[in-house]
């Protein structure tokens, strides 16, 4: 294939993928009362409405909180699992991998229903956020696991031996040698986890309690009865938040990743 043709082809694919996002973002600046594209006049009125809407604000806080907690938990568990998988699993390696990736392979709705039964069976129910956080941890775990184990596979065992010969105990070696060297994988995995958690619908829908709607759920509720550009404003803010998380982590944490 010739280059210009290839370029054009790529542009078309991107346009196809990105067009819906552009439409949503465009529609959010609508001055009219209905969700239309192209917008009928430009205005920020729907953003104002959105930022004054307590229900949405609470949903955003819930989403961020759940995503943050789920990321920390699945970041920790996923990293430990990857460490075990790469260094100690031995003949259980394949089994460990399948178990860790299972949430990715099963339909999310099955995972959600099973978990719902489970939290009621053990009496936790959905009055607390425990069930929902557990669900988010479950579906984000594979992403941390994949990223961290990929970076562990390229970790040279002789770095660890060198550190040992220099007198470093196990904890020091982990903190000063291994962690910095697998950091790109850990950060990448955590980013994925955060975004997946922030975005997920099914798990949150099944496991939410009263007043613990996440943003996607709240948006869904809203769209059942309303059709204003406020929905587009919510979506745009949610896209922006995701982008901010990615860019900030890249800038703050990523700088050191690309050093070597």
């Amino acid at each position, binding site marked *: 294939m010739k280059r210009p043709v290839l370029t054009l082809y790529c542009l078309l694919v991107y346009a196809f993928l990105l067009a819906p996002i552009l439409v949503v973002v465009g529609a959010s600046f609508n001055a009219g009362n209905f969700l239309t594209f192209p917008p009928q006049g430009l205005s920020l009125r729907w953003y104002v409405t959105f930022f004054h809407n307590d229900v949405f604000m609470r949903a955003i806080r819930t989403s961020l909180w759940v995503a943050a907690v789920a990321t920390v938990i699945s970041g920790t568990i996923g990293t430990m699992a990857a460490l075990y998988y790469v260094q100690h699993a031995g003949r259980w390696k394949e089994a460990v991998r399948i178990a860790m990736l299972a949430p990715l392979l099963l339909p999310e709705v099955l995972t959600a229903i099973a978990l719902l039964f489970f939290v009621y069976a053990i009496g936790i129910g959905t009055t607390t956020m425990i069930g929902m956080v557990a669900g988010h941890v479950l579906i984000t775990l594979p992403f941390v696991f994949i990223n961290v184990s990929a970076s562990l596979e390229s970790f040279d065992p*002789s770095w660890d*031996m*060198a*550190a*040992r010969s*220099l*007198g*470093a105990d196990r904890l020091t070696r982990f903190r000063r040698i291994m962690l910095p060297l697998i950091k790109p994988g850990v950060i990448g995995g955590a980013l994925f986890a955060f975004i997946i958690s922030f975005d997920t619908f099914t798990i949150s829908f099944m496991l939410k309690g009263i007043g613990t709607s996440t943003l996607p759920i709240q948006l869904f509720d809203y769209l059942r009865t309303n059709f204003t550009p406020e929905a587009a404003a919510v979506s745009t803010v949610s896209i922006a938040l995701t982008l901010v998380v990615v860019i900030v982590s890249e800038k703050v944490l990523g700088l050191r990743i690309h*050093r070597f």
Partner: protein
Amino acid sequence: MTEVSIERLTKTFGSARAVDGISIRIADGEFISLLGPSGCGKTTTLKMIAGFEEASEGAIRFDGKDVVNVPAEKRDIGMVFQNYALFPHMTVDQNLAFGLEMRKIAKPEMRSRIAEVLDMVQLGGYSDRYPNQLSGGQQQRVALARALVIEPKILLLDEPLANLDAKLREEMRVFIRDLQRRVGITTVYVTHDQAEAMTMSDRVVVMFGGRIAQIGPPSDIYERPENLEVAQFVGQVNLIKGTIAGAAGPGKSRVACVFGDVTVDSRTDHTPGAAVTLSLRPEAIELKPAGQGGAQGKVTARYYSGSIIDYRIALDSGETLHVQTFPNIRIAEGDRVSVHAPADGFWLLGAAK
């Protein structure tokens, strides 16, 4: 400083004996090489000394103290790896500081020791570079510096020059040897390159299949190989068949071979008539134009390589010889030649164990 004593050291992996009951006494400040073909257990031995592999049997003593149960991080060892194993996220300076920080050395002393060692490996201006900003030879010297800066009891090196090109490798040989002499540290060096082992070591340990075939100074290993295997592994060798003709004074035997009767050190009490093998190094042989005595033969091949010429000679008696000479004699392929071997060029080989 430190004397290392290894006693009947054994390492088994399942039923395989990677290292099979080796014993070595390494004197304080000595430079010892473990030399042998791939898979003979050199790295495994080194790892047991370092503490990365547990010994299955036997003892390792540093200055008389058994260290078998001391973990690697407490053994106070400097180790240089084949792939250098520099920490890629740390600068040269941070790499060197790591071991000193583990030892809780105060900052000012740390600075001066790092500066001193970097100077020693001629990398004074490089302390802020990351490993990937250094050439292979420079990384090698940083690895050496990192191992030396902690002033360890023992320096262990596992094929540290294997990844360098030929010229740099020769430079580094001399460099490491000189440095080791100056620092006076007990050193164990693993290699499968016999020339490397020869030029650097006080003594060479030749290993085959997890066992020691011979220990001795390089000249002994080369000139007086214990057996056929050692002779063949350490440089090139001609094997000359002969029969014991009788005794020739105390400790000497007369052996009849294609070069006539030669006198050699008798190493086992061979009875007259016993078949034996003599070794004769290619560079010990002298070639002269045909008809000047000695064994007669014909040049079947000639390989010129600058400082020396290699010849293959087919003797009239049927044997093939490998000869190396300086290029100052002009003998062409197909020429007939007289082959002379000096009396002290022969060495009686023991049977391989």
